[in-house]
């Protein structure tokens, strides 16, 4: 068996003394898409943001247990800046920075000190192609990113994350604001990306989880109820609550 890319051991997170996540155990194998489903306030976004330490900035966050990336403790053995270059994230709402498409894509590489114009141009082309956006924007790379449509903006955000050359990509409900066609494009990009990256996808859309996830984890009220192959979770869930949720009895 391959060693897991990410390994979460007995992870609990609380904000201001209010527990948000409790006792999560979970291994994520490399080059798969893990879908994380669950109703609102089930802790799935907290879980995701814990993986690349984006919650560090929140006040009064307390965390116990550990998250291992390639067997190294994310909270004790990684500098958060280095960690976030390895573990990228796509947010729920498309969040291009108010600059050109080109500058958006190379925001990460530039912060690492890369100045060579040819190299940066090559990065832009590669990442926009990987995110299925190149054909739509190749003639206007230097126009403002804010002018793109919502779906294009979200694919730009994917390209921007790819430019940092991460190993893991976290998607936080990436299609919640998109129409079905844009959603299909983002899903297509994700399916192709898993060849090179490990993907964790938080989604409110159980159908999406079933479509693109190799594995699926179900969170409820801060607890990981069940995790397993997407097929078996959706056809033969072991836990009654999982069954209730995916069959639409609540949530």
């Amino acid at each position, binding site marked *: 068996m391959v060693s897991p890319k990410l390994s979460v051991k007995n992870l609990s997170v609380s904000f201001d003394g209010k527990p948000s996540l409790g006792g999560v155990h979970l291994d994520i194998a490399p080059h798969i898409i893990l879908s994380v489903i669950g109703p609102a306030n089930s802790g799935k976004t907290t879980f995701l943001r814990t993986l*690349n330490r*984006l919650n560090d*900035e929140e*006040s009064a966050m307390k965390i116990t247990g550990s998250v291992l990336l390639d067997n190294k403790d994310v909270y004790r053995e990684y500098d*958060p*800046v*280095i960690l*976030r*270059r390895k573990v*990228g*994230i796509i*947010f729920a*709402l498309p*969040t291009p*920075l*108010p600059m050109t498409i080109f500058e958006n894509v190379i*925001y*990460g590489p*530039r*912060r*690492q000190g890369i100045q060579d114009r040819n190299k940066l141009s090559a990065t832009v082309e590669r990442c926009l192609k990987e995110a299925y956006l190149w054909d739509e924007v190749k003639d206007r790379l230097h126009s403002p990113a*804010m002018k793109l449509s919502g779906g294009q903006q979200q694919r730009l*955000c994917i390209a*921007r*994350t790819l430019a*940092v050359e991460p190993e893991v990509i976290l998607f936080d409900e990436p299609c919640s604001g998109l129409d079905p066609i844009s959603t299909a494009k983002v899903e297509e990009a994700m399916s192709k990306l898993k060849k090179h990256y490990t993907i964790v996808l938080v989604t409110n859309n159980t159908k999406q989880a079933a479509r693109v996830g190799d594995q699926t984890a179900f969170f409820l009220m801060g607890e990981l109820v069940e995790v397993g192959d997407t097929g078996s979770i959706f056809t033969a869930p072991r836990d009654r609550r999982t069954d209730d949720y995916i069959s639409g009895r609540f949530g």
Partner: protein
Amino acid sequence: MTALSPKITQRVAFSLLLASAVTVILPVVVVILVIVKNGLAAISWEFLTTMPRSGMREGGIFPAIVGTFCLVAGAIVFALPLGLCAAIYLSEYARQGMLSRVVRLAIVNLAGVPSVVFGLFGLALFVDFFRFGASILAGSLTLGVMILPVIITSSREALDAVPKSFREVSLSLGATKLQTIKHAVLPHALPGILTGTILGIGRAAGETAPILFTVAAFYLPRLPQSVFDQAMALPYHLYVLSTQVPNVGVPIRYGTALVLLTIVLLMNLAAVTIRSHFRAKKKW
């Protein structure tokens, strides 16, 4: 007596509100009209560019204009970097704790201190303690301290108005916190910071009390040679012309006031223009 119908109550209320609003405009218009009417006659190229003569009863106000510009420039050079850095610390780094509460309280208090107290403070600290003497340096520092709260408050508001998502995006792309502030936050806060700075400049240019003991020369018919020189300044010059020198012609006094008012209004206009220009441009 029966109650008034709602319709009439509406009309009365509306008229009262309108009257209040118009009353606010009135003093501004009257002040400007009076100053322009009495001062316009004095304004000429010679008035703006020559030294005062005959015990300030004739000639121009050139050294006072130069002095005011020097003081304002010095105040900004001192207050902008300090205030901006303090604002960045408070907005981006400080956790809600004892220190940040104390700093906030200090800023509020600083903003509430009467300007003449700043003058005394400048006299004690910069003129006497640091032995700068009555000089442009001492006056600039005093004005700088006075406008610090304006700059800090407006910079903080501008920084806080930058969406949190910009910071998260930048951090998530592997930028350090300092890089995030420099590349994803500051550029978008700049218009607000600039607006606050210009308002600060306007205030520094117009105040008399802080420069009274720290820099202002009663009559100095030459330009300042260094930052340790005394200088004339428009607001103090106006005070002197109006109360200390007998038989100064009305046009010279009002002309001086007109120049001062124009400088301050132009700066406020610039602040408003910058703000509306950038507000129209940014879309997030």
